[in-house]
């Protein structure tokens, strides 16, 4: 009776740690000292980071000028789409009270422009922008082709609605001497965008490369004539174009427009004084009740000015500490109670 039938021995399950659920394991247990010290350390860390972030955000100098309404006449003109070819410029004087030290960046900022609409984000053709096939207008609806069937390059709603104001910053030494502040339009895009994602069709002559395509309807000029000053900045690899094509996540956004060329007078940054923006007002924000402004800002180690992150860290740190102390209180109280019980 005691012997096991031969051949059935194999039915005995293997004695492995896995099969017997005996795998060596660490049993996670929230111990009081671990949790409390962890919380305490996290609190210290968060408070520290928070304060540093707030301080560095405070050190950033930033000027924002909303020029939607300031250039009222231009705004009115742009309300009507028929007048799209009429030029309108306006000049906005402003004052910088303190020197903006270091690198200064100029942004345009749009309010109420939904670059994150589902249809909008899709309305582009990455393969076209890659330059392999300029006539590939893929998912570019509703701006795939012009009325006569010529493919649009660059196609799609994103490209069509490009921000097309020109903003020139001039430094007004006095009422008569206006120096144009030297600005760089390079280095405002991601390296991958400029060199991988956006490529011009390979051809000696850009205009011939785009032959057989037409410009987007809102554009005054074809894509190969975007930058008259720098021929290397034309076509799909135009920096402003690339910046615009990287769609924003929120309806309010600011995009890098120019950065200060730190030469001559501006080697330290923007000195305090009177300035003015000379704006060619093309972008019709009022048609969709949007607003636009121009922003000058310096940077710090963590990037641009944002108090939120610093505040959030500080609050988190404070709450964590609060939690630490209340948990410690609860723990100590309980410890006493336990000891009280054990003494009895």
């Amino acid at each position, binding site marked *: 009776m005691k012997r096991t039938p031969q051949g059935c021995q194999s039915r005995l399950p293997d004695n492995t740690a896995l099969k017997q659920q005996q795998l060596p394991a660490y*049993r996670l247990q929230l111990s009081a000292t671990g949790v409390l010290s962890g919380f305490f350390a996290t609190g210290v860390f968060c408070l520290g980071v928070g304060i540093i972030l707030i301080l560095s955000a405070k050190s950033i100098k930033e000027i924002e000028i909303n020029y939607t309404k300031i250039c009222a006449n231009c705004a009115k003109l742009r309300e009507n789409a028929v007048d799209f070819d009429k030029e309108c410029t306006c000049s906005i004087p402003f004052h910088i009270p303190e020197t903006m030290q270091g690198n200064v960046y100029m942004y345009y900022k749009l309010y109420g422009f939904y670059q994150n609409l589902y249809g*909008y984000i899709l309305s582009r053709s990455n393969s076209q922008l890659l330059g392999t096939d300029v006539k590939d207008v893929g*998912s570019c609806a509703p701006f795939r082709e012009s009325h006569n069937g010529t493919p649009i390059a660059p196609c799609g709603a994103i490209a069509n609605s490009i921000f097309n104001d020109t903003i020139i910053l001039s430094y007004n030494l006095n009422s008569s001497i206006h120096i144009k502040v030297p600005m760089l339009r390079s280095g405002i895009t*991601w390296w991958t965008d400029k060199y991988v*994602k956006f490529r011009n069709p390979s051809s000696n002559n850009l205009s011939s490369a785009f032959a057989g395509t037409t410009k987007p309807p809102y554009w005054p000029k074809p894509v190969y004539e975007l930058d008259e000053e720098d021929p290397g900045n034309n076509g799909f690899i135009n920096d402003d174009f690339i910046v615009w094509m990287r769609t924003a996540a929120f309806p309010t956004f600011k995009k890098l427009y120019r950065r200060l060329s730190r030469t001559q007078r501006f080697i330290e940054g923007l000195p305090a004084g009177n300035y003015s923006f000379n704006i060619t007002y093309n972008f019709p924000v009022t048609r969709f009740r949007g607003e636009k402004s121009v922003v000058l800002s310096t940077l710090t180690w963590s990037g641009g000015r*944002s108090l939120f992150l610093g505040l959030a860290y500080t609050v988190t740190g404070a709450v964590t500490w609060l939690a630490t102390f209340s948990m410690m209180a609860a723990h100590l109280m*309980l410890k006493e109670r336990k000891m009280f019980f054990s003494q009895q």
Partner: protein
Amino acid sequence: MFCSKKKLLEAERIVKANDREYNEKFQYADNCIHTSKYNLLTFLPINLFEQFQRVANAYFLFLLILQLIPEISSLTWFTTFVPLVLVITMTAVKDATDDYFRHKSDDQVNNRQSEVLIDGKLQNEKWMNVKVGDIIKLENNQFVAADLLLLSSSEPHGLCYIETAELDGETNLKVRHALSVTSELGADISRLAKFDGPDTKLMQNSGKTKFKRTSIDRLMNTLVLWIFGFLVCLGIILAIGNSIWENQVGDKFRAFVFWKEGEKNSVFSGFLTFWSYIIILNTVVPISLYVSVEVIRLGHSYFINWDRKMYYSLKATPAEARTTTLNEELGQINYVFSDKTGTLTQNIMTFKRCSINGRIYGEVHDDLGQKTDITKKKEPVDFSVNPQADRTFEFFDHRLMESIKLGDPKVHEFLRLLALCHTVMSEENSAGQLVYQVQSPDEGALVTAARNFGFIFKSRTPETITIEELGTLVTYQLLAFLDFNNIRKRMSVIVRNPEGQIKLYCKGADTILFEKLHPSNENLLTLTSDHLSEFAGEGLRTLAIAYRDLDDKYFKEWHKMLEDANTTTDERDERVAGLYEEIERDLMLLGATAVEDKLQEGVIETVTNLSLANIKIWVLTGDKQETAINIGYACNMLTDDMSDMFIIAGNTVAEVREEVRKAKENLFGQNRTFSNGHVVFEKKEQLEMNSVVQETVTGDYALVINGHSLAHALESDIKNDLLELACMCKTVVCCRVTPLQKAQVVELVKNHRNAVTLAIGDGANDVSMIKSAHIGVGISGQEGLQAVLASDYSFAQFRYLQRLLLVHGRWSYFRMCKFLCYFFYKNFAFTLVHFWFGFFCGFSAQTVYDQWFITLFNIVYTSLPVLAMGIFDQDVNDQNSMDYPQLYEPGQLNLLFNKRRFLICMAHGIYTSLALFFIPFGTFYNMAGEDGQHIADYQSFAVIIATSLVIVVSVQIALDTSYWTVINHVFIWGSIATYFSILFTMHSNGIFGIFPNQFPFVGNARHSLTQKCIWLVILLTTVASAMPVVAFRFLRVALFPTLSDQIRQWQKAQKKARPLHRRRPQTRRSSSRRSGYAFAHQEGYGELITSGKNMRAKNPPPASGLEKTLYNSTSWIENLCKKTTDTVSSFSQDKTVKL
């Protein structure tokens, strides 16, 4: 030769034996068994059709179709397609493997060989080719794979012994009898195929197994519906938002960016948005949920299969999870319904002790003269001098052997009685060994005991019994056989020994026998009575033994009267009974025997432990009330310190109602004494109003109910009262219940109590109960397969139930709950970000994440860690799970995952999604990157949130995992690593160069993840989502620790020290109650013996009897059947004395 049998559809089936051509006209089914569902060609269409019948799959198919509609498509098709295909493929592979095994087993059955008479010759034929009407020759120990009609056999009188284990699970041999006309036809067994293939009894009975679902399943379905509701609400909110937005802002803006195509009706736009958001938000119920649940259950099932502690080495039987979908239900059992024979008991009787002439044998005294338990250490009596002794028999008291050697006449008489007074048949096997064929295992034990002590029952004829008495063969003449029945509760034989003395030997229930004793026995009676109480206290089955010397003349007179009585037609039974009564008096008491109905190993501990785990155990048995109660005591379910035991044995509805009423009155009456009167009154009112009462009754009660009363109770309005009563009792024993009633009892509890039931049994009579309970467990390792085949889990020993429930079940439940909590949390956190984003993207159904991320999140980035937790997690180890059965209670109370828990998980998920969305949003809303560039572009934002999400949910799973094995480490770290490597791959220049439209995120990971502030955001998000969880958990453990928490703490503290092995003191029962004649005895065998029908031809019956035998050959079977039914009905009259 014709044969017909009534059938449901066809009223009559006329078959010409051995005439295939004729029989083919009727197009009977062939004998090929098909249990498989598919073949190679039909697999794909049928399987796909079946799969899409499942609501979840159909739903996802619907989503997929929605996604193909360009107007509302907000996600590319592959986000749903890839997971759906994956899920369907996995299920299909599983179905295919299952079906492959079914094919294999079908083939095995179909290809068994049989011998068929074709063209006048016996030919070998596969069973699958056997046709209706074929004549088949069967030999001993062959399988039968069709319904057959017995034509003749090599046994005398066309008898044939068959085992019907595969049909009904019963392993004892059943007698089948050929029609007398056909019985003389052939020497070997030959049979006529009657019903074939799908028409056979087995296939007809197998029925479609009900698809069982766990309560978690049902809860999950409810929750999924809730989630759909929630999803629709979100969709509506966003659709309304979209309409308003379109109205206020969108029309102008769209006109600007999209021109004419931008002009839309805002209401219609809202309608489309609704569907778009339904598509986007569908990830709240991810497809992978169902698959993951299945995978986890499969893992748990394998753990059950692999468990060495549930492997029974004697039968080489491992435990088997035959259903892989019910595991977590094992952690929620409230009621266990157990069969008795073969489940609680081994169905092995062993002769344990006896009392002869006032002296107890079988007790082992140690040096101090104290009674001790019989342990294996003691030297058993050496029976080697006796060549006929049964080797398996063990007895530990040497004094009995000494008494025999000394020639104590009472001892000799006692053993002689055991060797003579029984219905056992003897046989010599091929090795020349004596083999007993016993009809009741109790008798077998007694006869075997006598055999070992030198009184060997050798053989019998209808007129004689030959025994070997200490080496000398003695043949007794069998003068009369006073058969057992349930009223008499005793049996006697009257024999004449070679000296010519006539003796009556009687054995029976002590209560009955003691009334029949000669007055001179008084002293012995008191002594024996004490001994009987002692035996009963140990849970042994007792019998009293007595004899009577008869003088020749008296016997002859009596015998004549008996013959007269037998020939009369009217009141025959009464007259015979009266005569039996007449002769069985003035008996001389010899002593008593105590037979142990051997419990399965560890039954007592298991029962105790399960009771501690608040699991109620009901015994449902076909046995007699006394046997059942006896076993109840033996396995500690019934104890003497119970406040009361209610016995319900009424015959009519009214009686049953009265008994139930009394019992309830008793129950509540005693309660009343403990509390104030009016409070109880109110309570009682509530009781009557509410059928589900969670009443605490002071004291332990037990309920014993027999099948008859149960039948009445189940059919009438007493049902609820009975259930209420039964549920308040600690132990419930239902005896003499039919298989159907077993199922009805289970159904009753299942339907009227919101409780999870488990039925455990070993035989075919338990099949219905096993099928109807939430979980059916079959005892495997026996030859009968039916119970195992119907069961969801099977193992070889009852005691493994403890491990199955307390360890595997508890863990499964614990893991599944944790898994579900985490899974819902994860997907809420993942999906609701879209909802928040909707408010900032003009409700345009723009997703936050990259489409690839949505596709891969649930199936690649986060599936394995949670699976590892769902499969491997343990809160306390197995030993502690067993040692602290109270740990089982959260499962019964549904504490770990319920609607409240779900809402908490949901809230947690919503909180995390808020943190995930608004911290990056707040930070980047107006911020520039380190290089001065715009940082909050859509793609970077998507990457930041996705990365934070992956890290946050990984931290969460790390916090949830309480048992960190290597696998958990690999999966958790591996998932994060996988995420980053896939991220960088998909954002690499190379892949963009190849598929510019599919992977437009080129350079994103590189650019974003090198910025300090982005990492600061991710860190803050993680801290903000994890800290509250840690704090809440810490406070919960500190303030309201559960038992599991305490044991974990203790476990940790004890890790270094030797694990303390808790031994619960083995409570020794001291019961004063006696078993009655608790024998599994059937009436009718006496007649079989005296007629000599079951005897081999080599002991030829007297020639004169032959004709009579032939003539009667069917009538005795009918008689037997009649008697059996009588027996059953006589139980109803069997008014049980309260013991």
